[in-house]
Every structure is written in C-alpha cells, then in structure tokens.
C-alpha cells in the first residue's frame, strides 16, 4: 500500500476517533491490536486471507476485541478489514498513533515488557523516559513474553534495552 493511502486511512481513523471524543483510548487500543497482529502469524494470516469472506474476518475482529476494546476501536478495525487493508493495519495504526502524538506535541515511546505494567509503573516509566530524553512522550506499552524479562524502550531512533533476552544474547556471544 502506498504511503498516501496509509496516510489517508490513518487520517480517517484519527478524525473518527477525535469526533467520537476518545482519541487517546482508541489509538491505544488500536496500537495494542496492531502489535498483537504483528506478533501472531495465525491472526495476521486470518485477517489478510482474501479467501475468507470479509464478514467472517470482521466477525473474528469483533469476537477478539469484544469486551476488551471500545466500540469505536472495533468498528474502525472492522472498517480496515472490510476494505481489504488488513495487511496494512499495523502501518495505518502506527501512523495514527504518530498523528495523535503530534497533535499533543508528544513523541511516541514504545516500551516492551515481558509482563504487564501497573498503572503506577507506566506513569513512573513515562516520567523517567521523559526526563531521560527531554521530550514529552506518548507511552505505548506492549507485552512481549519473548524478551523474557526487563524492558526495552524505543523513542524515535533511541533504544534503551535492558531485557533478559538481550543479556542472554550478550552472554552467549561472550561464551
């Protein structure tokens, strides 16, 4: 999909979420959904399989997010899947998150953790990263068990990696 089309879809999502007055919630839920699609090969292939009827794929989305996400988020994802752009959903959502962050004069900070963070931890982590980078941040936490433990934060081009997986990799290299 071209950048222009991704941009158009992200702008449309942004306008809808903003109009519904829950931009922060929607972009956060869509961000988690996008990461889940990236991490799950089966889910990704199901949502992008042209041989599966669109209605069935939209039903999968609704069943997956039902009770876990806002109605606006579910409808927007269904819209993307219905338009046959499921493969580009992560890119569209990333652009949406960037747009929402820019709107708030913030920069996206993606943090991956092996376990879910508490609200307090998320808040303190956002403050610590803002202090460290000197920028206002829109923190997005992704639960990624593959890192085993610890956290890795990506702010723009800067990566702060203190995960168990990386330490083990370094240890393997030294061995």
């Amino acid at each position, binding site marked *: 999909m071209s950048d222009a089309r991704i941009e158009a879809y992200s702008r449309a999502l942004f306008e809808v979420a903003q109009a519904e007055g829950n931009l922060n919630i929607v972009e956060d839920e869509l961000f988690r959904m996008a990461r889940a699609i990236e991490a799950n090969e089966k889910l990704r292939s199901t949502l992008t399989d042209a041989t599966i009827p669109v209605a069935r794929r939209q039903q999968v989305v609704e069943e997956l997010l039902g009770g876990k996400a806002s109605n606006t988020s579910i409808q927007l994802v269904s819209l993307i899947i219905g338009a046959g752009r499921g493969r580009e959903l992560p890119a569209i959502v990333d652009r949406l998150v960037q747009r929402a962050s820019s709107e708030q004069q913030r920069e996206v900070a993606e943090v991956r953790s092996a*376990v879910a*963070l508490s609200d307090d931890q998320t808040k303190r982590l956002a403050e610590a990263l803002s202090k460290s980078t000197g920028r206002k941040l829109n923190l997005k936490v992704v639960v990624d068990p593959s890192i085993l433990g610890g956290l890795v934060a990506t702010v723009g081009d800067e990566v702060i990696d*203190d995960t168990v997986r990386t330490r083990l990799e370094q240890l393997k290299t030294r061995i």
Partner: protein
Amino acid sequence: MNLIVTALFAVEDPSQTHHWLLPETAEIIYGGLASTIVFVGLYKFAGPMVKKSMKARTEKIQKELDGASSARSKSEVDAADIRRALGDIEAERKKILAEADTQAAAILVDGRARLVKEVAELEAKAVADLSAARGRSGEELRGEIARLSSAAISSAVAASLDDRAQQDLIEGFIKSVGASK
C-alpha cells in the same frame, strides 16, 4: 707317315732339286725381292698405321693408368674421409653418450629433489590437516559447550524469573532510566 717316307725318298732324289733344304737360286732371288718388296710395302704403308695404333694403345693404356691413379687418389681421399668420418662418428658417439649420461644424472638429481620436495609437502599438508582437524574438533567442542551452557543458562534464568524478579527488573529499569539524562 707316308709324307715322312716320301720326304726321305725325295732327299735322296737329286733330280728333284740341288739341295734338299734350299730352293733354286732364282727362286731365292725372286722370293727375296718379292719378300723385300712386301716388307718395304708393309713398312711404308702399314708401319704408320701400326705406329699410330701402338701410340693410341699406349695413350689408352696411359690414360687408363692415369685414371687408375686418379681413382686410387680419389679412393685414398675417400678412405681418408671415411676414416675421418669414422673418427668424427666415434667422437660424436662419445659426446652423445656423455650428454646422455649428464642428462640422466641431472634427471635423477631433479627427480630425487622433486620427490624429496613432494614428500616434504605431503608431510607438511598432513601435519596441517591434522592440526586443522584438532582445531576443528576443539572449536566444535567449545561451540557445543557454549551452546549447551547458553541453553542451560537460558533455562535457569527463565525458571528463576518469577513475578518478584520481573517486578525487580521493571523497577530497576525505571530507576536507571530516571537516573540517566
């Protein structure tokens, strides 16, 4: 036998001739004149031809003698050439044999040197292969140990990552990031 008897009887017969051996005087004179004329004629006319013939024969014989002498000289020259050629052939044979001996000796020396070199190279290659094999075995062993160690460490670390450890890691990250600027 009859002729001899007849001759003996004739000698005894004086009426036949005045002497049993000599002819009549006139016959002697006529015969002598005729013989002289014949001899003079022969000398006059046949003599030059005989002389010429003899001279030609002499010249022919001399020519043959000269030819024989020339042939002999030529033969002697040829014989000398042949002897010299034989001498040259012998010298050439000796030279060729000497060169063959020299080449054979050189080939032998080269062959020995090449064999020695090849043997040395084979030995060096064998030693290098052996060393490489030892190195590979060592590296493979070290790699296997490292792999097993890593797997063991990963398993041990993953097993030790309980909720408390996870929280400690998260808090440690937040503190370290907050402390840095």
